């Protein structure tokens, strides 16, 4: 295993914390305004030609990622739903690979992204948690904790 001792995540979750030199309202827009989101989101080399974000509880999101591969350009679509929207401090959405029309390619790789923002004298502390949720899990609750125990045991 490759442990990340600086954070609390285990292997099925990614937790990243950053303190950004920007006011909280502006950071909130980075996540909820499609034009702003498209400016920064995605792996290096990828562009975001489409980012429709209806940042309301129950509102859909539709994001297209364009990547240039050795075989030519490739487009991937991601779709999901906003689960919690509490401006400017909490945003939770789920997402999976879809086709262009938002139909899930498969329902087994739904992931959940949680963004928590706090104001620190004009700067913004951001905690982003990205969880992979196994499809036939009776509920992802407790999953991470239990997995931490397992990885700790494996590390011995």
């Amino acid at each position, binding site marked *: 295993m490759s442990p990340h001792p600086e954070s609390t995540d285990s292997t099925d979750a990614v937790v990243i914390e950053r303190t950004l030199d920007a006011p909280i309202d*502006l950071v909130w827009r980075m996540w909820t305004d499609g034009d702003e989101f498209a400016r920064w989101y995605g792996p290096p080399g990828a562009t975001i030609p489409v980012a429709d974000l209806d940042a309301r509880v129950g509102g859909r999101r539709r994001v297209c990622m364009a990547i240039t591969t050795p075989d030519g350009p490739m487009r991937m679509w991601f779709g999901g739903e906003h689960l919690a929207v509490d401006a400017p401090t909490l945003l939770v959405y789920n997402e999976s690979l879809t086709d262009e029309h938002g139909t899930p390619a498969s329902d087994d790789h739904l992931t959940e992204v949680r963004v928590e923002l706090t104001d620190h004298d004009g700067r913004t502390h951001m905690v982003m948690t990205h969880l992979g949720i196994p499809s036939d899990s009776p509920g992802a609750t407790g999953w991470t904790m239990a997995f931490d125990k397992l990885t700790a045991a494996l590390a011995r």
Partner: protein
Amino acid sequence: MAATETEEDQLDATFSALASSTRRALLARLARGPATVNELAEPFDLGLPAISKHVKVLERAGLVRRGRHAQFRPCELDPAPLRQVSAWADLHRTTWEASFDRMEQHLATLQANKESNRR
């Protein structure tokens, strides 16, 4: 950046095998060393057939290997699929870190523009 289909299938199998607290406990036990199904069953209230069933799920997910020759066919942990799960997280982590670097640059640009407009 997308995992291949086989890798995805492997991740599916690993995640569903791990989606049971009993099976995670069995793996934690096996992390300490090989054990027979009888030994694995000891700390549980479940009967041997139930434990046997869980072990079979872990075997199918490639997380557990069973000895062919020994009479009691001891179970042994195979951590390779778990490393695959770790790779999933590492992939996403790398992507997010790169994204947030760009977000910081973008934020800096936006604020610099705002400053210069004010002057």
